[in-house]
């Protein structure tokens, strides 16, 4: 009985202010609150509220046979709590059905794992507590920022009590193997690996509204048919991992994405052998098809391979090293607000905007960058870091 594992990542980068050198030592508020509120409201109306309503209806309609997983970053949960209780309420009602699993990650959508084991663990625990408090679940599934994974990470995660880790499928790890099985990192006894099925996930996230695609327009029936085909090749699981914002934002309402999602469970469940399962359920059900060696997949020294978009150039490395270089100073101040500010600055998005590789890559996919240029992103960020560093050095209460 093959499983469809549908996981939505819910995150919004928090924008920093346009922060010039002349603001240093004058302005210690770094976020663009107005803009962030505007974006939050826009996404709530376009995506979160309609998507939550659909999910809730589908769960009720299929009486336990439609099951999904969410990973909502801590910083977004904070914003929902403060500014959009209605959206948070939607997630809570979904959690109450017992058909949704909430997945644990770093609270601040950070890459702390590469720079500070202590900071990494603290952020994971913070997020865990938040999930428990809001949704009444103790998470058993972990997902690292950008679906990153490696041997060290999986060992630590297993020790922290998790059963499953969600991962970005990579040819160099999987080789000839299919992402349609459950795997285990070498050296782990309990932890299982679920790999994202890139082709089928991107059929929705990237190609859904691409009219140049041979399969356009994509209907739920057609897509379900592709899913059902995996029965022939003996796969156990299809991991569809995508951003929740795909529904209504990346794929606008007019593309028919909501109708597609509404019909998808019916079409998939038409085949009696198929069912929806959450990551924990998948991991509980299947034995690992193989143990995979994940040593040195990523490391701080060699980030080019997996994290080049975040830590590939000298700007990104300089910015992130400067940030984590402040850790002991930040902690010694024992000031919750300072610690929070420092953590906000850890969001991987800030470093992604400093990515200089893409203009030359020629893949034509120019990612959205609020700064217009990676250099502007770096300058803005470094000006803020400069101010924060100066502020840290000052006596308390100043």
């Amino acid at each position, binding site marked *: 009985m093959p499983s469809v594992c549908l996981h939505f990542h819910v995150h919004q980068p928090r924008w920093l202010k346009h922060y*010039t050198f*002349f603001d240093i030592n004058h302005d210690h508020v770094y976020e663009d609150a107005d803009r962030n509120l505007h974006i939050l409201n826009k996404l709530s109306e376009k995506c979160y509220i309609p998507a939550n309503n659909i999910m809730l209806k589908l769960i009720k309609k299929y009486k336990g046979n439609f099951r999904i997983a969410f990973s909502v970053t801590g910083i977004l949960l904070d914003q929902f709590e403060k500014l959009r209780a209605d959206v948070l309420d939607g997630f809570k009602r979904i959690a109450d059905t017992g058909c949704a699993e909430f997945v644990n990650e770093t609270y601040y959508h950070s890459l702390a794992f590469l720079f500070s084991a202590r900071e990494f663990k603290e952020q994971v625990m913070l997020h865990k507590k938040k999930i428990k408090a809001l949704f009444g679940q103790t998470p058993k599934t972990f997902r690292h920022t950008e679906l990153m994974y490696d041997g060290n990470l999986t060992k630590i995660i297993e020790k922290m009590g998790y059963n499953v880790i969600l991962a970005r499928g990579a040819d160099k790890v999987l080789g000839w193997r299919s992402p349609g099985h459950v795997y285990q990192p070498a050296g782990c006894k309990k932890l299982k690996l679920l790999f994202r099925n890139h082709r089928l996930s991107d059929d929705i996230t990237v190609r859904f509204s691409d009219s140049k695609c041979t399969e356009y327009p994509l209907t739920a029936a057609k897509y379900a048919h592709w899913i059902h085909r995996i029965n022939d090749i003996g796969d156990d699981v299809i991991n569809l991992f995508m951003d929740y914002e795909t529904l209504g934002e990346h794929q606008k309402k007019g593309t028919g994405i909501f109708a597609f999602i509404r019909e998808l469970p019916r079409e998939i469940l038409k085949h009696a052998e198929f069912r929806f399962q959450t990551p924990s359920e998948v991991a509980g059900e299947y034995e690992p098809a193989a143990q995979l060696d994940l040593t040195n997949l990523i490391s701080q020294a060699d980030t080019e391979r997996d994290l080049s978009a975040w830590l590939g150039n000298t*700007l990104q490395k300089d910015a992130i090293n400067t940030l984590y270089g402040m850790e002991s100073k930040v902690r010694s101040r024992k000031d919750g607000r300072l610690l929070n500010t420092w953590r906000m600055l850890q969001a991987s998005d800030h470093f992604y905007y400093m990515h200089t590789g893409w203009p030359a890559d020629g893949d034509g996919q120019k990612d959205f960058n609020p700064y217009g*240029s990676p250099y502007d992103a770096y300058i803005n960020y470094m000006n803020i870091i400069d101010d924060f560093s100066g502020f840290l050095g000052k006596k308390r209460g100043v």
Partner: protein
Amino acid sequence: MFGWEFPPHVSGGLGTACFGITKALAGLGHKIIFAIPKVLGDAGQSHVEFISASEVPIKKKHRKEFKVFKGLDIRLIDSYLKPYLSKSQYESLLRGRVVKLPAHEKARSEMREETWESVILEISAHYGPNLVAEVVRYAKVAGTIAESQSFDVIHAHDWMTILAGLYAREVSKKPLVLHIHSLEFDRSGEHINRDIFFIERYGIVSADHIIAVSHYTKNMIVSRYGVDPDKISVVHNAVSRTEASNIYHVGKSTDKKIVLFLGRITFQKGPDYFVEAAAKVLKKLPEVTFVMAGAGDMMPRMIERVAELGIGKNFHFTGFLHGTEVEQIFTMSDLYVMPSVSEPFGISPLEAMIYDIPVIISRQSGVAEILNHALKVDFWDVDDIANKIIAILRYPVLVAEIVEKTRDELRSIRWEYAAEKIVEVYERVLH
């Protein structure tokens, strides 16, 4: 080919561009006859080369030979015309201080019979006929080259050679390609010289095909001159590196940073924004030196403003710089800033990049279209310009990343590629 200037006698980007284009075309096996005005009457020049209370010595033009190469045949045509005329220069020209040549009057009387010339004279009555008559006279003299030579295409550069190009076309019946490096709207903003605008429009409408140095310029031609976009091809300029390649990293002082403005000190180049940004930077980083290299009608005002702001100690004017002096100032500088108000292309940032200098360029420029690894600003946003200047001076990692990525980028910016596109245009007008 009709041009204004040619190295080493260069006062702006056009001469540099003509050198790059002709050399690359010659490299592809094409033969070029290049006609340029030879400025007459050194004595009468001071009223045109406008440098006043600036205390900067006026340098006499070195009368060197032109840089020539195989495939290039240079023809000099005596003329009073100077490529970059500012508003105040027009005024002095129009006040009749130009020494009249006998040929002048003759040209004027001859003109009445000719159709295109009388059109031009009629529409340009506003400022009086002196300047325009001279352009027409130059056109006819230059155009006579067309009678004695054999060629396939006429290629004219900018407004002053438009009439020469048209005349040559009339005589030879060969197609005319008009290459627009800058427009009257770029040079003068909204206070255009109507005569020049009319000549430009006449040429743009009449030419068989237009080459624009950027999409920025193409869009301006379409919107301001009402021309079908299909008639305009964009060919971005490039930069020659052979001259500069062996001068990397010389004489850069580590503790005293130098920020450079290099170009004509005219409205178009935005020197005032550079001065205002300098004052802001100096409030935060008092050790920085700012250099404004070049000459132009706004120079006295800039000097006054620098004095007013009290930043003279850190702000230097060099006057007009020649070949080796330009190289020298590039090797000394840590940052090049081009805050142009309207820059059809802008080759000098590319030259700075060859010297491994990071550049800040205005978004209102054609060169911004082809550079991914330059910092970009809106020319009016003095705070942003200052902020970025400080960032370059304070964050060495930023400079390293930009310089490294720039070297890659420069590899794809070559005159050879520009020449190939120009040849495509030639083929288009020939078929």
